[in-house]
């Protein structure tokens, strides 16, 4: 009982702000905090492994942000990794086969992800939510198969190696640190974009669909329209992170985009917290480096993940973000 009232208290604060203040005001609090956060890894620049992890965290933030966007309209995509893979493969094929500049390749990757999401969404978003889960799961599998069977175009199971590093305006991002700066900038922009989006009426209508789809539909907010919008945009985030990842690792293969990756994104989202901008950041920040603690004992890691997932769902349905709200709620009550 306690939990729910407190969560609602938290919401009250957040929602009122979203509605009352002009967009942009809250940024004043967010931006410095984010900048500090993204600057921390620069202090660890001496150890490339930490920078490597920091790059992965940034890419995961973008990736999970996309999933969070989709989830805010009430859907959970089980093929998020497939869209990541689509973005990665499309970008890499452009870079390697057509020698297009990095910017064009990434744009192509994002565009392909969006188009595929639009076509798939048009079909399955007409149906009840549970079909969305089943079909996205199957679609993820289909994507992997197509990449495996893609012969010379996708390199089959071996994937594509020797992808040249990212190059932007004459600068080559070939060191870990330089790529981190790029990835951090992209992650930062993706966060700012989401903050801005959820301050607009459009963002509010997406939340409306997530909160109560029937009511939203009855008051003029199209469920299918909103969910398609979120699915396409969220998958674009995934494609973008995939295109960056491929140029960072210099390598793509179908196994890098299998169902486990989609499920990992869901875990990050749920543990971090759904329904807020902070959740995905927290999820990626904690869950990306965590496996390193268990690098040589994977079974234990996965069992821990499973237990954590269930406990978080049970006691912190808002995710780790909910802890903050809980504490604030306690202080607020005399």
């Amino acid at each position, binding site marked *: 009982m306690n939990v729910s009232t407190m969560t609602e208290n938290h919401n009250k604060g957040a929602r009122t702000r979203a509605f009352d203040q002009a967009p942009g005001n809250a940024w004043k609090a967010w931006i410095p905090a984010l900048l500090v956060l993204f600057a921390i890894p620069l202090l*660890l620049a001496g*150890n490339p*492994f930490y920078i490597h992890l920091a790059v992965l965290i940034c890419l995961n933030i973008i990736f999970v942000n996309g999933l969070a966007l989709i989830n805010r309209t009430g859907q959970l995509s089980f093929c998020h990794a497939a869209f990541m893979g689509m973005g990665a493969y499309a970008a890499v094929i452009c870079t390697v086969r057509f020698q297009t500049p990095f910017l064009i390749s990434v744009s192509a990757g994002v565009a392909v992800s969006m188009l595929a999401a639009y076509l798939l969404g048009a079909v399955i978003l007409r149906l009840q939510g549970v079909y969305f889960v089943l079909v996205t799961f199957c679609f993820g599998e289909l994507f992997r198969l197509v990449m495996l069977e893609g012969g010379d175009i996708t390199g089959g*199971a*071996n994937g594509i*190696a020797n992808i040249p590093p990212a190059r932007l305006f004459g600068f080559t991002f070939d060191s870990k640190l330089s790529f981190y700066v790029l990835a951090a900038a992209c992650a930062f922009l993706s966060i700012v974009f989401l903050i801005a989006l959820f301050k607009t009426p459009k963002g509010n209508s997406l939340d409306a669909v997530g909160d109560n789809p029937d009511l939203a539909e009855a008051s003029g907010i199209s469920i299918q329209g909103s969910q398609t919008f979120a699915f396409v945009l969220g998958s674009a985030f995934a494609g973008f992170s995939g295109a960056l990842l491929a140029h960072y*690792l210099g390598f793509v293969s179908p*196994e890098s985009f299998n169902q486990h990756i989609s499920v990992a994104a869901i875990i990050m989202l749920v543990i971090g917290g759904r329904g807020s901008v902070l959740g995905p950041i927290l999820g990626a920040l904690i869950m990306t480096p965590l496996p*390193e603690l268990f690098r040589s004992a*994977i079974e234990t890691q996965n069992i821990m993940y499973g237990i954590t997932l269930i406990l978080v769902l049970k006691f912190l349905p808002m995710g780790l973000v909910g802890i903050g709200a809980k504490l604030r709620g306690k202080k607020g009550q005399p």
Partner: protein
Amino acid sequence: MKKIAIAGLLCLAGTAFAQEELKIGAIVTLSGAGAAWGQAMLYATELAADDVNAKGGLDVGGKKYKVKVVPYDDKYQAGEAVTAANRLVFEDKVKYIIGPVGSAAALAVTPIVDKNKVVMLTLGFTDKALGKDKAFNFRPNLTTMETSQPQINWIVKAKNIKKVGGLFPNDETGQQIAQDLEKAYSKAGAQLNAKEFFERERVDMMPLLTRMMAKGIDAIELDGNAPGTAGLIVKQARELGFKGFIIRSGGPATPEIVNVAGNGAANGMLVNTPINPANTAVKAYSDRYFAKYKKRMNGFSPAFYDGTHMLLQAMSAAGTTTDTDKVRVALENIKDFKGILGTLNWTGAEVYGAAHQISAPFYIARVQDGQEVIEATCSLTECK
């Protein structure tokens, strides 16, 4: 991240004795599909490390080094392997890596190890794992590229085989091996005229076998399949009434296959094996392996045991553990190494562009009541 740093410090603190420590990293698959191979490689490395540690450590330039193996799981995924490699190279500061298991992972890791001059002994079956521009990559195990031709020449002639059917997992190893075998069979005068690819998780092989048998094949090729899958194929083929030969041209795993297929079904199977049952050194190694890990040794394990010893010997010879350029050259220069598998040399200059491929004797065996009976002894040129 702090947590990792602390965990790392704790590890260091625990072992910070006066003796110098030499860390060897292992990127191996410990969960999922390739776990059997990953374990075999890791345990081989650990046993080799035990050998030198028992003698008070590795003698390099007058200093004694205690060898420590740092294993990380790559979950048979290239992306995970890259993260593991980054951690080994930059966090653990290792200069030597055993692994990875998978070809995709081997390719993904190569740029990192080459750039940072880390010597890598990989299992990866792809022909791209070795090359002139991959100066630090070595492969201590025989692959289909080496063994298939002489072995297939012998089998095709001795058993009078014309048409062969092959079932391969639809992954990088399977695709690569199918390609190699197709060439080898046609060179030997037979034909691999039924090729089937399937998802690695697949367990029902009957539809695939049905289709192959309808083509009137004389033999089924099992190379490239995980041991458990190979066992299932043998079992189901015999259940379908297949009377021809079953051949495994690579990937030693007879005990595992027999375990799944059963003694009856596996009888008469022709397998490639790097181990002569009469070889007492391997027998001793196998017993030691079982005593320590309570698991039966996988056929790849001795190759990595020998490989690790060659690497350690190269360090002693080079007189350094840090200058990997020197160690690499010393490793290349090892000739007629007396390993438990026999006399080992480097080869592969023509095929790969770099002589970083092991050359070891191997055998063709017939499976009888779960045991291997040697039928022919092979070198990389021919079988007798």
